[in-house]
């Protein structure tokens, strides 16, 4: 699976003092400087309304910088059409019902890659691989609205994965998913990472982000307040900063600190530290 949905290289994404104000006057971003290297996996965390979704919508031109600028693959986005940027950056939105239009699962997944000019065997392969990645192989002829919400959400993900964009953005991919669904999302991110693609995910699940992403960016009120690997962001020194935006480190990090084992943001790192401690 990994090779098929994830061939191709990554893409660098960056913002320079990016500011964005909605037409109603709400300032959603306030000077965001962020550099994401090609092939990097980054999770954006922070409260509802901290600017995470607004930020990622700049990477395929759905929103245009009020101040500052956005770079995709090192090139300023400027006024490039969304349809062009869609070749480079795929966004999986939170609500699948705002995108699903086709009467059949397969047709829904075909839409994106077809728009990008894929056809024939390449298209078939992409679509099959994307459906397999989300566990919908065999449901090609099903009407999407006969699927439950969580599987429609996975369908939404497949329809963007099939576009094989060098960068993939996932807006809250785990909401409403059960343990198996969350495990699928983890596998998909791992597969994309293994193929060197860039992944940016927005999530409220601290355990999920700590275990899946090597870099975390914490946002508050339109600014980046922390940026680093989970061990650093969830390290005890940063707890007061996290508390300012009502975030709590995962249990493993809290346990590690309690036991004086240093920063152990994941279950595995905690167990490892415990073993070292015993030895």
């Amino acid at each position, binding site marked *: 699976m990994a090779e098929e949905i994830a061939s191709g290289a990554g893409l660098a994404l960056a913002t320079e003092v990016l500011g964005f104000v909605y037409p109603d006057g709400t300032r959603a971003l306030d000077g965001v400087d962020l550099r994401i290297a090609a092939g990097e996996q980054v999770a954006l965390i*922070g*409260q*509802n*309304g901290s600017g995470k979704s607004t930020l990622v919508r700049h990477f395929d031109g759905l929103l245009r910088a009020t101040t500052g600028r956005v770079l995709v693959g090192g090139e300023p986005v400027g006024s490039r059409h969304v349809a062009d940027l869609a070749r480079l950056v795929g966004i999986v939105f*939170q*609500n699948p019902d705002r995108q699903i239009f086709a009467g059949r699962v397969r047709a829904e997944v075909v839409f994106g890659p077809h728009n990008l000019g894929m056809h024939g065997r390449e298209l078939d392969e992409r679509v099959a691989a994307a459906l397999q990645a989300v566990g919908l192989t065999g449901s090609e002829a099903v009407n999407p609205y006969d699927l*439950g*919400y*969580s*599987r429609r959400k996975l369908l939404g993900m497949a329809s963007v994965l099939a576009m094989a964009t060098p960068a993939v953005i996932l807006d*809250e991919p785990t*909401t*409403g*998913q*059960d*343990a*198996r*669904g*969350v495990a699928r999302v983890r596998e998909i991110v791992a597969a994309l990472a293994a193929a060197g693609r860039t992944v940016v995910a927005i999530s*409220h699940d*601290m*355990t999920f982000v700590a275990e899946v992403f090597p870099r975390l960016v914490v946002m508050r009120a339109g600014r980046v307040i922390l940026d680093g690997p989970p061990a650093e962001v969830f390290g005890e020194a940063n707890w007061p900063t996290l508390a300012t935006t*009502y*975030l*709590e480190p*995962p*249990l*493993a990090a809290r*346990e590690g600190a309690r*036991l004086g084992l240093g920063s152990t943001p994941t*279950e*595995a790192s*905690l*167990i490892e530290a*415990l*073993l070292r401690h*015993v030895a």
Partner: protein
Amino acid sequence: MSLRLEGVSYRYAGSTATVLSGVDLVVERGEVVGLVGANEAGKTTLCLVAAGLAPATIGGRLVGTVHIDDLSTAVARPFELAQRCGTLFQNPATQLSGTAPTVWEEIAFGPRNLALPLAEVVARVEEAVRLLAIGDLVRRDPARLSGGQAQLIALAGVLALRPSYLILDEPTSQLDPQGTRLVGDALAALAAHANVGVLIVEHKTDLLAGLASRVAVIEAGRLVAGGPAADTLADERLPGWGVQPPAPVRLARAAAAAGVSLG
């Protein structure tokens, strides 16, 4: 006084598939009962049946009985049920009335339907606002809220009916950690101080661990496990049912497997 499902089986109108079979479940007033299970195991259907919306509003075929206190959902009228049992479903966008210009009026929608005196409507809205700490949202247009905010407002709208029971289908799915804690605290307070019985469907087992007194597991339409929250959430079969055990359980298990102790 309790909400009781006895020998409940159900299938949707126009479908031959039995979505629930042989379900027995009791929610006492003043207690929080958690319901966990994989997606499409029947959690939402169980909520619909427990609230009396199925079959009264959406049809379908029900076997067995559902009682809310002494009222059987088979004979009760929807508005009678609504006063006893507040119900909230997953998608917050469809849980709002869609006609209120401000959040304040959205929360007042239910109490106004009951034709309560104006002073009582105001008191209930203010109570719900205080309980969920949403004072800064009351002037906003409900149509322009984020998913998480809408979810809090929808919950407030149900709380303002002051029901004896609450049936909540993933009420925190779109909330950030702070919002999730708030909802947890509010539900605990309602159970403890207002004697409300709560049935809550959640994927966030960490929330249930601190909130629910009992937890039931549903798998393919049947309740396959149930009991005190601490026991059910530590059940080794949980992952097999598509349910993530709470973090402390996972950590303890991982530590035990590695032969170390968390002290």
